[in-house]
């Protein structure tokens, strides 16, 4: 049987009488690239915050990396990586300083940090920029570095919240190469995106509408199920039914 790194059952988050997340259930396998899609306001961010141990659910169950979101949020945080378009690195620290800082926060030993950071900088081709402030790097490089930093402590799962927004088309693809490589090494990828071609790169995709999961399958099966030529169409058909709109 495949190892499950995320298991959710009837997970719900209520704010007053508003069900941001309404009884969602799904499982994510180890090493899987799991796409988490939905219109603005569908409840993606709320669900992701719960899975990262940052927010308590109202009801339901969720285990992440083998830990309970109610009782062990701190253990969850140690075993995951997180990266978003909005927050990822400190712009006024250098490349090396960012790696050292985040490595330290996640409990990687100093000697290990030194060893791995040299490798990483070389692999990213940032040797000449290692001592430059991150703020001075082009967006594409920043995003690639941010992803590498998010998986630096070799977490079981990495959560990526719109990691490629605004990035040029070539860098966007290089970014996905890094995602594939990380997944092949056994890191589970949980990713949100507004680019529907990127939904095709996922092993499985969920689409949330108004707090509920309305579809969950491989891109190929979803296209068959909704008689659509591409994921854009699948998404449009589902999201169009949404009653609520929001952020």
């Amino acid at each position, binding site marked *: 049987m495949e190892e499950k790194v995320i298991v959710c059952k009837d997970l719900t988050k209520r704010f007053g009488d508003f069900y941001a997340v309404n009884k969602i259930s799904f499982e994510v396998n180890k090493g899987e690239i799991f796409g988490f899609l*939905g*219109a*603005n*306001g569908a409840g993606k961010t709320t669900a992701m915050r719960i899975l990262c141990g940052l927010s308590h659910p109202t009801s339901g169950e969720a285990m992440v990396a083998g830990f309970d979101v109610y009782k062990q949020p701190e253990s969850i945080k140690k075993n995951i990586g997180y990266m978003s378009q909005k927050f990822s690195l400190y712009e006024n620290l250098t490349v090396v300083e960012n790696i050292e800082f985040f490595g330290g926060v996640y409990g990687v030993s100093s000697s290990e940090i030194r060893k791995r950071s040299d490798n990483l900088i070389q692999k990213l081709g940032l040797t000449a920029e290692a001592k430059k402030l991150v703020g001075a790097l*082009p*967006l*594409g490089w920043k995003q690639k570095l941010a992803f590498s930093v998010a998986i630096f402590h070799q977490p079981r799962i990495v959560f990526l919240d*719109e990691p490629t*927004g*605004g*990035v*040029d*088309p*070539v*860098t966007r*693809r290089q970014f*996905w*190469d890094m995602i*594939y490589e990380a997944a*092949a090494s056994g890191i589970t990828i949980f990713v949100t995106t*507004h*680019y*529907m*071609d990127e*939904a*095709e*790169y996922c092993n499985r995709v969920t689409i949330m509408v108004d707090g509920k999961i309305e579809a969950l399958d491989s*891109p*190929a099966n979803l296209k068959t199920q909704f008689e659509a030529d*591409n*994921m*854009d169409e699948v*998404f*449009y058909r589902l*999201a*169009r039914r*949404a009653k609520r*709109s*929001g*952020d």
Partner: protein
Amino acid sequence: MSAVTLDHITKTYDKGKVLAVNDVSLQVEEGELFGLIGPDGAGKTSIFRILTTLLLPDKGTASVRGYDCVKDYKEIRNRIGYMPGKFSLYQDLTVKENLDFFATLFGSTIEENYELIKDIYDQIKPFSDRRAGKLSGGMKQKLALCCALIHKPEVLFLDEPTTGVDVVSRKEFWDMLKHLKQQGITIVVSTPYMDEAVLCERIALIQNGKIMSVDTPDKIMAQFPVKLYAIKADNIYHLLTDLRSMPEIDSSFAFGEYIHITLKDAGADIDTLQRNITQRGHTHVDIKLIHPGIEDSFIRLMNQA
């Protein structure tokens, strides 16, 4: 007379160290729906800020409806609508108060040009007493568009109006733009989403401050110089890494479930290619000749630069 003209515009920041806009020239015609297409950091916002008289260029001249962007800034400000990329309305005023404020600023009233915004405003009207800061992303975007339109501008500048917005709201937004265009307003819009390029009449592809191409989307796609193939197999990631190691392949980029490739030899035989790929252990190999999209053109131009 063109609605918007940029003539050899250059803009640098940080005492010349950062070249944001590099000798850009282009024209937008009256009544045109024109798109500036490029990623973050390409220089789109700098161009918008120069045209809306909020930023002085280092070199070159720019004009809007014949008025110079430096000398005649007051004339221009009365004639344009500008929706910046960052939400810039007053968060603690209500929807209606914001709209009233912007109408008054331009010596107009909501009633005077109501027809222009009616279709858009109707969608946020149920929330007219809600503070702008409490609106959802999609509604903020609609309110910002209404505020940019309320004085009936001759030229509308929209800087990344659909960034971070989901597919459904993006489609709705483009429908609104088409409708505005029919009323004779010139629209200059920027976007990082390549799929939106085909919704414009003409586009400029921009990268690192340089215009790579200006034309209609159809013509830009037709200028793709070589044959483009789409290929897929069961294990798409292994296929991609294999293609990169094959000498006959010139370029290979993932596009959803397919990989788009170009070949070094224009006359290469596709059946041979298919056999070579199958020999590497791939199953269900499917290769077909396709028409390039804007993103194919963009990548090609980027790699030539």
